[in-house]
């Protein structure tokens, strides 16, 4: 796919960004569990 217009370019990049956003939201939840878990749970 070759891209000729800003419009197509944004459609493409924003598509990826939306996927990343979903990934980041799920990722941060898991990471939070990881960070707050473990045995140093006193503060």
């Amino acid at each position, binding site marked *: *796919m070759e*891209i*000729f*217009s*800003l*419009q*197509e370019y944004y459609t493409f990049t924003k598509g990826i960004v939306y996927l990343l956003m979903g990934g*980041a939201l799920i990722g941060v939840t898991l990471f939070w569990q990881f960070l707050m878990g473990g045995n140093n749970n006193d*503060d």
Partner: protein
Amino acid sequence: MLRRTFLGMLGTACVGASIPGVASASKEFTGHPGSNGVLFDATRCIGCRKCEEACNKVNDLPVPDKKYDDLTVLDTKRRTDAKTLTVVNKYKADKGPLFRKSQCNHCLEPACASACFVKAFKKLPNGAVVYDESVCVGCRYCMVACPFSIPAYEYDEPLTPRVMKCTMCAPRLAEGKLPGCVESCPKEALVYGERDELIKIARKRIERNPDRYVDHLYGEKEMGGTSWLYLSGVPFTEIGMREDLGTKSAPELTAGALASVPMVAGLWPVLLGGIYAISKRKDKVANEEKKEAVANAIAKASEQAEKTLSEALSKADVANKRQIEVEVKKAVEDALTPKEEESDENSEGES
């Protein structure tokens, strides 16, 4: 050697990540090479409405009540609507009436396409911006977005309304024919061709007849450029075209808002999580302080009690030591037994 392999791998990874064929860094786009457009010359248009008629025919639209040779229609200002994909309007000027055809301008960066949340609009390589009815939800955001107020809507269709606009006759172009309106124009006020060529032609016309034209090719830059271009002998505002649109294209206008969306999604959880952790820790510290304070108070109180007791004892020592000691012992024993029971009960109740 090792280093080189590593760099090589890194390079491959980068290329892989940028996905072949996608221009990554440079964001200057000039549209499909060799895409087409139409040049409209207002100084040639005579307001015969032949283009309107042709458009109506090639698009199989319902025939209007007033015939196309009825030129009184021109006396009222009209716009494109669900049954009319192009209209010619009349404007009064010093030199006599002027006419201007309007239809979709087939923007290089279409606002309608940028706004549509189902990608119903597409800029084809041949220059036409076309609409796909099979996905349209009917939100009409495209109509809000179009700076030229072109798309119209079938408001009277209860369940299957479509957005209606000029297609640059994409189906005819695919067959190698000219757009209906261009073909029917008796004055060659409409010229179809490669956009780059049209720009050259227009420039030449302006150069050769500087008195006839204003030095402005409308659509070359407006809203990021359009495939439909306009020449005029009077300032464009006088033939009903907005000159305050600017050259920024629709995707550029929304780029800032769109760019901040992923930042919020990425950073808000971190920020809010941080605030949560801090407020929780504060709660905890406050709780601990409270506990400590209570413990301190209890300790202090019992210390005090002991002290008074021992003081009383030593005072009592002065007189009849022995006897009093016995009595005190008795009294203390008496006093303590029920208390012990009580405290036993208390601790049971608490646990």
